[in-house]
């Protein structure tokens, strides 16, 4: 009875992802770009929900829609926008870039549309328990390496932005 809901939400999220992503690439108002990027991330979380990856959708909302958008907005606040117009946007290598993108993108699109397997919802219980079991047993060493990487990025970011003029 509610079979139309899944394609409906897929279309909604796909429209949000592609429309907001295109706006991020083409707009010139940088704050609007940052917020539209957050909209793209939120629609991507909906895509993960449709795919049955609830935990990934939760991480997506927490990390991308929350943390990364706020960081980008801080970067927008701290830097001055140079309002240069589209003079630099349409450069002379634009036809070459378009040709290269078409040559790569068309085969990728045909290849992508050749997969017809339906995506069925995951088993009950969600994906949190198998994800956690996999992450903390088989992948515990990469998990620890990732924590070291995050610590290094934290220290590195602080060192890079620290003023050394006092």
């Amino acid at each position, binding site marked *: 009875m509610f079979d*139309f809901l*899944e*394609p409906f939400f*897929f279309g909604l999220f796909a429209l949000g992802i*592609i429309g907001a*992503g295109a706006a*991020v*690439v083409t707009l010139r108002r*940088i704050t609007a*770009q940052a917020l539209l*990027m957050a909209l*793209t991330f939120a629609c*991507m979380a909906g*895509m*993960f929900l*449709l*795919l049955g*990856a609830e935990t*990934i959708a939760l*991480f*997506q909302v927490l*990390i*991308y829609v929350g*943390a*990364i958008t706020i960081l*980008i907005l801080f*970067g927008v606040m*701290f*830097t001055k926008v*140079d309002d240069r117009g589209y003079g630099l*946007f349409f*450069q002379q290598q634009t036809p070459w*870039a378009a040709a290269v*993108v078409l040559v790569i*993108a068309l085969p*990728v*699109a045909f290849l*992508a*549309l050749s*997969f*017809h397997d*339906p*995506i069925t919802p*995951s088993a009950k219980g969600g994906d949190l328990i*198998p*994800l956690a079991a*996999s*992450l903390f047993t*088989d*992948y515990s060493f990469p998990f620890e390496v990732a924590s070291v*990487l*995050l610590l290094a*990025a*934290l220290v*590195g*970011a*602080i060192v*890079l*932005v620290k*003023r050394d003029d006092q």
Partner: protein
Amino acid sequence: MTVPLGAFIAVSAVLFFLGAAGVLVRRNAVVILMCVELMLNASNLALVAFSRRAGQLGAGNPLDQRGSVFVVFVFVIAAAEVAVGLAIILAAYRNRPTVNVDELHQMKG
């Protein structure tokens, strides 16, 4: 009536190429960072979609979550990348007040 796998992959490919075009044509360093995040997110969608398909084909454990585990590590890398990237942009901005990557052509401190 369910959504085919190819539709997810097509959305992922479109978003990836949008991000790549943005990285190539935009000149604001912060906007370039945003477009890199879009590309990372598009790759995440493809990873989760193919992981779901591999779990359904019966080729392995249906509870196999390798794609999702990889996506978790991509999240970690993306968070580290945006923090360090913005720090580099701000350090370069303090040295020379512009975020236009065409004008940031020297690496001297």
